């Protein structure tokens, strides 16, 4: 166990929500497990589109 990290049961409680148009741009979702945190894991989401 890393210092400063909690050790109890794990659940999914954090989300990135998107509108339908934004959902269609999503290419990747993961969590940033390298970030120093207490009990919540930061989420990140990659989107891709071309500007006209």
């Amino acid at each position, binding site marked *: 166990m890393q210092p400063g990290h909690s050790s109890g049961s794990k659940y999914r409680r954090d989300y990135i929500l998107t509108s339908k148009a934004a*959902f269609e741009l999503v290419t990747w979702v993961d969590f940033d497990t390298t970030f120093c945190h207490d009990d919540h894991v930061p989420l990140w989401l990659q989107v891709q589109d071309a500007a006209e």
Partner: protein
Amino acid sequence: MTIRSFRITTQCADPRRFFACLEHGSLVFHLVVLHAPCLSKNKGYGTRPIDAIAGWWKETARLFTDHITSDLVWVFVDANAPINQEFSPHAGAAGSEEPTRKVLGEFLQALTLFVPSTFEHFHHGPHATWTLQRLQVPQGLYSHQ
């Protein structure tokens, strides 16, 4: 293009909600940050009976209606609630947890929002985002009488 390229407007802010609009020419999108109240905190700060929690989600949906003007919206939320494929197509089966209440799913349906991390073709890695903190009491604090 970087974040400095955008005109950023704070549309709404309170201790649990933040709505921002970002504009660059014809490109307009919204970023929303939410921290939903938690039912399990049943005493002291954070006391929220289920009706109050449902009211919070309903009021948040009203704020969406008032402030969201673009089709492009990203919402970053500590929902304090599980979700599963019961609310398909808004949420998928990946990493599903049985919801005990429907407030989050109903919020997704009402606003036509989607949860990419619940779909296997988007999400990689583990699904858990939150760890229940164990209360550890030092042995010296126990009283043996």
